């Protein structure tokens, strides 16, 4: 019935066999159990709710959001900032895998790259839903529009994010395609791109930080620590997300890796989270010890100001979650395949989502540049749109993971290296 066993791929042009591979891959990635279909249906439904909310926002104007001239960026740009971190962090396992030649990591690397792809798509969507005139999107296309490069940092962000997407699509596509053909991947075609993606991962988050920290009129963002803090927190959120995804894949029996790579990820998280918290302390000290105008946003964020305290619960939840998550990661049992590890990952993911989003973007606008205090909390439409973006991201990720699992599982299982049981390091 199936025509999958086509002619010898060596004799076929890649122009034919690569699309064929993609088609078959998509076909096989949409095969699964009833639970899988239920999951996919749920994600599709939420995505559609988001698409509908966005369509209403476009038709009726952005008055549908709770943003104002004072707080002119809100949940969308917050979510964008977090997703850039997720995308950058997703590739962080590439460093141990290739720089230190850790072969066990290779099976995890491709998962990280898939997460990076889904996260970049979510970034792009988060920006698209934030612009008032999506119909004028073509004004941003170099050549036919007017691309204000290199002066506008936003144009840099457009370049690095799209470049990052292409690099990762190439790496994932090439590695899977070669496995599908039953060939050994030729390092010339992917190792340079892997190294490029490492530098590129750092660049996407640095440039995103520069979007904010280059603005002299916003003292809360105008700090040289912003880019390093973004990177440190990305090296927590990325690996934490990968750990959760790997756990789900193992529990559902789709795809399993050795326990070794996960321990490397936890070591990365431990260091990065401590560095992140240290920088947060340094930031808080500088703001509050100096005082003055620089501290007014921080005052509002942490303690409320002039009777307004909308962000106070968000920020303290974030700090509590980050501290609890960090403490849990330092427990010996985090090195095992334990519940502690899962809880720790969830804590830091939620903590960082707040810290980088509602805890960073929104207070940049409160008080406003004329020191008006106008508070912001997202509208229902904004929540629906963001839920839709996440659902769509998960939809893409599920399909990619399914595809990776299918391609890898079809191969003879590679010989496992012996791993010490217990894993009671640290």
């Amino acid at each position: 019935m199936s025509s999958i066993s086509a002619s010898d791929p060596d004799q076929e042009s890649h122009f034919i066999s690569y699309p064929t591979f993609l088609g078959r891959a998509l076909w096989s990635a949409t095969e699964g159990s009833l639970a899988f279909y239920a999951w996919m249906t749920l994600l599709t439904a939420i995505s559609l709710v988001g698409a509908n909310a966005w369509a209403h926002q476009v038709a009726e104007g952005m008055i549908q959001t709770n943003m104002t001239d004072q707080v002119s960026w809100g949940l969308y740009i917050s979510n964008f900032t977090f997703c850039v971190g997720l995308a950058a962090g997703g590739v962080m396992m590439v460093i141990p895998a290739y720089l230190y030649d850790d072969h066990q990591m290779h099976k995890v690397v491709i998962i990280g790259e898939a997460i990076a792809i889904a996260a970049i798509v979510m970034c792009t969507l988060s920006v698209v839903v934030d612009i008032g005139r999506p119909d004028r999107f073509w004004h941003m296309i170099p050549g036919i529009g007017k691309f204000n490069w290199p002066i506008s940092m936003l144009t840099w962000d457009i370049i690095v994010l799209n470049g990052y997407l292409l690099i990762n699509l190439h790496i994932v596509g090439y590695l899977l395609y070669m496995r599908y053909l039953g060939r050994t991947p030729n390092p010339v075609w992917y190792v340079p791109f892997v190294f490029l993606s490492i530098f590129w991962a750092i660049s996407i988050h640095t440039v995103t930080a520069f979007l904010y920290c280059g603005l002299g009129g916003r003292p809360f963002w105008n700090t040289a620590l912003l880019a390093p803090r973004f990177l440190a927190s990305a090296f927590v959120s990325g690996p934490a997300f990968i750990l959760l995804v790997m756990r789900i894949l193992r529990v559902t029996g789709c795809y399993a890796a050795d326990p070794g790579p996960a321990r490397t990820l936890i070591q990365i998280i431990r260091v990065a989270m401590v560095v992140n918290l240290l920088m947060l302390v340094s930031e808080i000290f500088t703001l509050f010890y100096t005082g003055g105008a620089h501290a007014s946003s921080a005052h509002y964020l942490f303690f409320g100001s002039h009777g307004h305290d909308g962000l106070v619960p968000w920020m303290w939840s974030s700090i509590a979650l980050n501290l609890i998550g960090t403490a849990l990661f330092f427990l010996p049992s985090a090195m095992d395949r334990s519940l502690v590890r899962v809880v720790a990952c969830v804590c830091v993911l939620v903590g960082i989502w707040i810290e980088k989003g509602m805890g960073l973007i929104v207070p940049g606008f409160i008080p406003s540049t004329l020191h008006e205090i106008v508070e912001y909390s997202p509208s229902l439409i904004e929540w629906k749109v963001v839920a839709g973006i996440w659902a769509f991201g998960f939809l893409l990720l599920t399909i990619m993971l399914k595809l990776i699992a299918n391609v890898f599982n079809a191969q003879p299982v590679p010989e496992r290296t012996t791993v010490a049981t217990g894993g009671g390091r640290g």
Partner: protein
Amino acid sequence: MTSKHDSTALPVINNFSRRAAVKGGFATLGAAAFVASISPLRQAAKQTTAAEFMQSHYTELSAEDKQAVIARLEADAKENYGADVTIADDRPIPGTKFVYAINLSVCNGNGKCVEACHKENNHDRSTNQSYIRVIEMPKGTMDLEQGSTTYTGTVPQPDKFYLPVQCQQCDEPPCVDVCPVQATWKEEDGIVVVDYNWCIGCRYCEAACPYHARRFNWKKPDVPADEVNPDQSYLSNRIRPVGVIEKCTYCLHRTRRGKLPACLEACPTGARVFGNILDPDSNIRWILENKRVYILKEELGTKPAFFYFFD
């Protein structure tokens, strides 16, 4: 699953045609649901004509292009607002650099400038929009944190002074730098303008401005036909489309025709002084040379073309 097939790595599914039918059915259903979910966009698409969608950047429009664009915008104003308007394309006067100054010893916070701006520039009535904000400040400080923009009651209060803030038409405008599509730029007479038909509405300029000078059209502006100011210019007070940024243009549709800004004309105290700084005999030049002058947030290096002075 795949063992019987030699050259492939992907699992093979039996019962191909039935599954293909089911999957095709679901895909069709999904596509239909997607189309239904984004159907409100059809409403929005109706409001954008092909000519508007394809319109080039202001600086790339030829004289004929501009004529066509302006005719279209005038027809739009008639259709959507029931108003007969004239939209001109006022260009800078050579040898002119406009500068504004406000006498803080005289301003009494009556807010007439705010109101005049609202009417002159065809601002949205329901949000009571204006390019000017007046801050009521306690005497003895220049710290904006001590001020209030929402003051009510009689003015002036004995222990207060009043600081009107609008676009400072900076010589180093951060808003222009950050725009990803060059929809905003500084013209030769110093006025920072926006091409409302090119702006994509990302609001990066609104985040970059240290003076809260920019406004976003969160909704389609609502102006009754008899209140529309028909005397308009492409780069200034024509009724703005939804979803784009707008800002103070020193009323270029007036000042480039030799008139004074609406906020100045409305001011009952005579606190406002406007003029061409390149003219050595101008009043504004004398004030800047002889008075004590204060520049708002001078430390940010934005080099405003807007000054505050004291008697």
